[in-house]
């Protein structure tokens, strides 16, 4: 039997599909166990989107409109790594978020908070050879979401990564350290206890720009490969 190329996630890493406190899961979470696939070319290849051209300002969400958005300007940066700590070079990182008032630029968002015509909320960055990526944005607000009485999402930025293969695809959310809403959020708390802190960015004083913006560091760790080479 050949050894698998990518390591299976350790138990206690990802949320259970069915997390009752998050009320959208019972109607949508698959109930039957997923069938384990051996890693074939279909799983170890994946879109690298290497040809994708990024415009110069795509990673600066404060300069995509006519003027600067309202809110607290922040820097969000980090590295895309695998489980061995090796960088995932040239990774495409996509983010989306609400504005400083807690409102998405999206027709489905009916929250009674102002839209900001200068904030769209989507960005992309290409990591460098060391896996480092950078965004300039504004700190997203908390927003109510009707999951339960007085439910508010903690401030968060959505992140989407492909990694080197179909098997490494990941969509996640970055939270801010010590947000008082975290203990009450069913989506954050769907992640097992020992792993959920990985979704909190670190306040990064060394990377702040004096007189300009505070900084947060969020490293993203994708699945690593087993030691045996594939040849």
């Amino acid at each position, binding site marked *: 039997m050949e050894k698998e190329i990518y390591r299976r996630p350790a138990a206690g*890493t990802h949320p259970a599909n069915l997390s009752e406190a998050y009320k959208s899961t019972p109607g*949508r979470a698959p109930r039957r166990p997923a069938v384990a696939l051996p890693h*074939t*070319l279909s799983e170890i290849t994946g879109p690298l989107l290497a040809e994708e051209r990024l415009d110069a300002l795509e990673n600066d969400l404060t300069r995509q409109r006519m003027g600067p958005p309202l809110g607290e300007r922040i820097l969000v940066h980090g590295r895309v790594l695998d489980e061995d700590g090796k960088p995932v070079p040239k990774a495409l990182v996509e983010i989306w978020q609400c504005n400083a008032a807690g409102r998405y630029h999206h027709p489905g968002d009916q929250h009674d908070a102002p839209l900001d015509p200068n904030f769209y909320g989507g960005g992309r960055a290409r990591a460098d050879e060391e896996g480092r990526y950078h965004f300039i944005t504004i700190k997203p607000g908390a927003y109510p979401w009707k999951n339960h009485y007085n439910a508010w999402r903690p401030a968060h930025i959505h992140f989407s990564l492909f990694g080197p293969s179909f098997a490494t695809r*990941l*969509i996640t959310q970055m939270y801010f350290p010590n947000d008082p809403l975290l203990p009450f959020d069913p989506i954050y708390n769907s992640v097992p206890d020992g792993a959920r802190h*990985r979704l909190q960015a670190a306040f990064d004083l060394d990377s702040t720009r004096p007189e300009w913006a505070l900084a947060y560091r969020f490293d993203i*760790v994708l*699945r690593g490969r087993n030691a045996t080479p594939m040849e």
Partner: protein
Amino acid sequence: MSKGLTPSQTIGPFYVGTLVKAYRQDLAPPNVAGEHVEIVLSLHDADGMVVPDGVFEIWQANSHGRYNHPDDRRNLPLDPGFEGFGRASTWLDGSSQFSTIKPGRVPWPQGGLQAPHINVSIFARGLLNRVATRLYFEGDPANAEDPVLKMIEPARRSTLLAQRDANGTWRLPIHLGGPQETVFFDC
């Protein structure tokens, strides 16, 4: 020096339009080799209701069975202009359409070939993890010897088989739950 794998979270309801330049539904310009096909995927919840706020991603080999990726090192042609990746949000009726080519066969690690298939990822509000499945083409003679289809109990294999409608479009409904729950893969 690992910090441990980053856990998955839902894509949430509000990505449409904010996922910048996300969508690619026409994968194959006319000059790409192979049989050009139209594919409609639709997404349904456990109660059979359509899911109008989901995202499909597809990943596939070209008509020669070659993936556009450095880990596919076989000496088979790559088609310029064909990457093999598509992404679309679901429409109000829960469906997404892709124009692509029918993929060729790719090898199975223990020998032999897999039947033509397209790898599918599904994201939506209420899905805390990406769910993955495969689309096969009903009536393809290679299906009978496909090692993945053979792993699945016969009664559920049809959940992976797209059917061709009167217009020639391949359609595959994907059921997240309920009696017709699609076979999903841990990949």
